[in-house]
């Protein structure tokens, strides 16, 4: 019997004229992993929150939601709270308590369990998740990935049958995201947990899913086994950008074969369908201008006197009119480098020049006028007002390569991630910067918003703006960068034009590059892969 059954579900938000969800029916069996995808505003979050009674959105719905054969509105409170678990995309804000052990115990305390029972389950869960080392730590000492694992663990401790995940990896770096998804998969296989996960980064999630549920404008577009569903999504313009690279490449050709999900399957697909007579594409050599926009020369910085160096002998140069991407793991000094460039922190040795002038020669905040501007990681730190109109009041929006006027009456926090990022960008561009610093600009954005963002940044470059972008996202860097640098422990260990950079690295590179390595040479983007494959049709 199905564990969750949704029958003809239609939902309307209070004071809304259109249905947010319309006539949705599907059922999920015990131990199934369902991946929910769809463009922003297609009703994914609404659907998943309707399945969790405590946080159901305000509105009216018709149809039925059955959990274990019982209408979800009639389940008693304890079962509803414990048996259906929910984790959302914000790692920080979901945590309630100050210590890790207390956060783990929080749900069980709510259920009124005695001390001994809580002690046992808390220890069990900490063991299972490998959290012994951080058990006594403060929750704010954890990294984003650890926080999200803690959120997962403190839901799992209530022994749920169904786990609902709303873009749980959106705010994580790729390595933490992959770890989170594989942990979820382990829970699914070892505990036969039912998982329903909204995800926009399908590269990791799709290969592990049993079923895919696609929503479009509040309607069920398709629901079925992952392979079959993926084959259909690969040719749909609204969905294909979010799919794994192998699948997107497959979708661009009309070849009858099993749709590939992973890098390995993608490689097999390429080798079986295309020859490698033409091994490389011709490409123009990259040349930059000679005028430096940002120079770091032997810069050292540490946050406190006894700490380790966050920046260590850091030297690199960004030239005018180029997009420069900085890649690197957590704590490699990427963000610190942007703070130093924008004079928010002061290095203890070395020199930073912006457009040839030393940072300390920019007096009276002139650095921040017509010169340099920083888009911080958290766009919400930029908003000071209650509507977007007030927020952008006085901001010259004429020349922007995007339009925000349809959202002017909304609160900035109510915009989607992509819209928030664009609103933040509009504010940042108001100072007419010639050098734009971006800190993880596409964190939490869906594939479409990401591509839109890349288009906008490239448009800005053609207007003469130099861009420095710090990111974890290799695919983004590959789409956007003219030159790339890799940071490791506060140093720039390599710095090269993008094409060569991705061809040379073996791990810090795109899925396409890993897929084609050794078969073709220097292919790192999807478009390049498509072009070379077309040249090699058997």
């Amino acid at each position, binding site marked *: 019997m199905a564990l969750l059954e949704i029958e003809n579900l239609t939902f309307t938000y209070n004071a809304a004229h259109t249905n947010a969800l319309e006539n949705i029916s599907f059922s999920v069996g015990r131990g199934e992993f369902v991946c929910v995808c769809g463009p922003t505003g297609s009703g994914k979050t609404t659907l998943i929150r309707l399945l969790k009674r*405590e946080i159901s959105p305000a509105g009216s719905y018709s149809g039925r939601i059955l959990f274990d054969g019982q209408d979800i509105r009639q389940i008693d409170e304890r079962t509803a709270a414990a048996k259906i678990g929910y984790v959302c995309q914000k790692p920080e804000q979901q945590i309630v308590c100050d210590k890790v052990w207390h956060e783990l115990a929080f749900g069980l305390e709510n259920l009124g*369990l005695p001390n001994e029972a809580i002690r046992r389950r808390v220890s069990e869960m900490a063991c299972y998740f490998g959290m012994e080392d951080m058990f006594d730590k403060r929750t704010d000492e954890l990294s984003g990935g650890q926080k999200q694992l803690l959120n997962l663990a403190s839901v799992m401790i209530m022994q749920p049958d169904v786990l609902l995940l709303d873009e749980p990896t959106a705010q994580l770096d790729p390595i933490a995201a992959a770890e989170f998804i594989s942990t979820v998969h382990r829970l699914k296989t070892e505990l036969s947990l039912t998982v329903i996960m909204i995800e926009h980064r399908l590269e990791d999630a799709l290969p592990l899913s049993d079923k895919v549920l696609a929503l479009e404008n509040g309607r069920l577009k398709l629901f079925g086994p992952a392979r079959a569903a993926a084959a259909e999504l690969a040719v749909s313009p609204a969905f294909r950008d979010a799919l794994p690279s192998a699948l997107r490449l497959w979708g661009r050709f009309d070849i009858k074969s099993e749709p590939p999900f992973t890098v390995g399957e993608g490689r097999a697909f390429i080798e079986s369908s295309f020859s490698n007579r033409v091994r490389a594409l011709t490409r123009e050599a990259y040349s930059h201008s000679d005028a430096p926009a940002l120079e770091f020369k032997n810069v050292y910085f540490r946050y406190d006197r006894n700490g380790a160096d966050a920046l260590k002998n850091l030297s690199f140069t960004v030239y005018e009119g180029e997009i420069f991407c900085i890649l690197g793991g957590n704590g490699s000094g990427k963000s610190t480098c942007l703070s130093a460039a924008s004079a928010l922190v002061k290095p203890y040795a070395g020199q930073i020049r912006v457009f040839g002038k030393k940072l300390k020669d920019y007096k009276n905040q002139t650095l921040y006028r017509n010169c340099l501007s920083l888009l911080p990681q958290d766009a919400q*730190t930029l908003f*000071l007002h209650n509507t977007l109109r007030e927020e952008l009041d006085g901001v010259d929006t004429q020349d922007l390569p995007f339009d925000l006027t349809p959202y002017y009456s909304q609160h900035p926090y109510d915009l989607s991630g992509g819209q928030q990022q664009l609103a933040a960008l509009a504010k940042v561009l108001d100072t007419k910067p010639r050098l734009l610093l971006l800190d993880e600009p596409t964190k939490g954005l869906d594939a479409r918003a990401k591509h839109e963002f890349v288009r906008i940044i490239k448009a800005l470059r053609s207007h003469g703006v130099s861009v420095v972008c710090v990111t974890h996202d290799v695919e983004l860097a590959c789409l956007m960068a003219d030159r790339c640098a890799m940071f490791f422990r506060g140093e720039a260990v390599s710095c090269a034009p993008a094409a060569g950079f991705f061809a040379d690295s073996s791990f810090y590179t795109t899925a396409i590059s890993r897929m084609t390595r050794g078969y073709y040479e220097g292919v790192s983007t999807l478009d390049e892969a498509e072009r070379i494959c077309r040249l090699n049709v058997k």
Partner: protein
Amino acid sequence: MQGLAFYNPIAAAVYFICAAGVAMFTMNPLLLALSCAGALSFDIALRGLRGRQGRLPLFILFAVMALINPLTHHNGATVLFVMNDNPVTLEAFIYGLNASAMIIGVLFWFRSFSRIMTSDRLLYLFGRLSPKAALILSMALRYVPLFGRQAKRINSAQKALGLYKDDNAIDALRGGLHVFSALVTWALENGITTADSMSARGYGVSRRTSYAPFRFGRADACLTLLCVLLAGAVCAGLASGALAFRYYPRIVSAPLSPLACVSYAAYACLAALPTILEIGESLKWRCLKSKT
């Protein structure tokens, strides 16, 4: 974990209440001296001789308070000298010395208290009283630093955006207000996520319990009982008047009775107890290490 920190927070709290409580309500110089000696030696045992940070200000405070009393109070029969037409008396001097010894002793007890009673221990104590209060305390301990960090983040984001037009104080104040209002909005908006996360995990479903990773074992019971007995002996001495001590107009002490001796001995034990536990623990470790 060692010494007093090894015991259940309830036992530790009972100890501090007994030791500091007696010191707070007596002006008997011997008891105050014992309190100061005990508190100071425990502080040294906890933080080491080198951990002087914060100790020096307390000594200066002691000296200042001890001197202020004879300069402002002129009671007492034994005039030492006359300053600005005001007599400075021996009794006022001794009284000032004792009063500041009381305050410094209690401050040192609190210094050790804050070292031993970490947030989870306090939380455990509150949880015994009310699980809700414990949760509120835990959330406050989490959110206060969180807001501080977010304020810093907003400030630097706004700074790089050119919120501050000039390098002057008025501009800084204006910017600060903006940052504060942005912080309030952020806190309210994100509070919704926290509230969702709480109700998703069954907050309010039934009567909350309060979990804490501490057990109350036999050693804890022994320590608690010992503290209560020792404090009881001191209180008996105080109540019977055997420890009475008068400063004005002349210093008069009650004659040394057997009960007074017992009381003094009991308080000496009580004050020295945590230091003994602490030193005993480190000696035990040294023995264990040398055997292996």
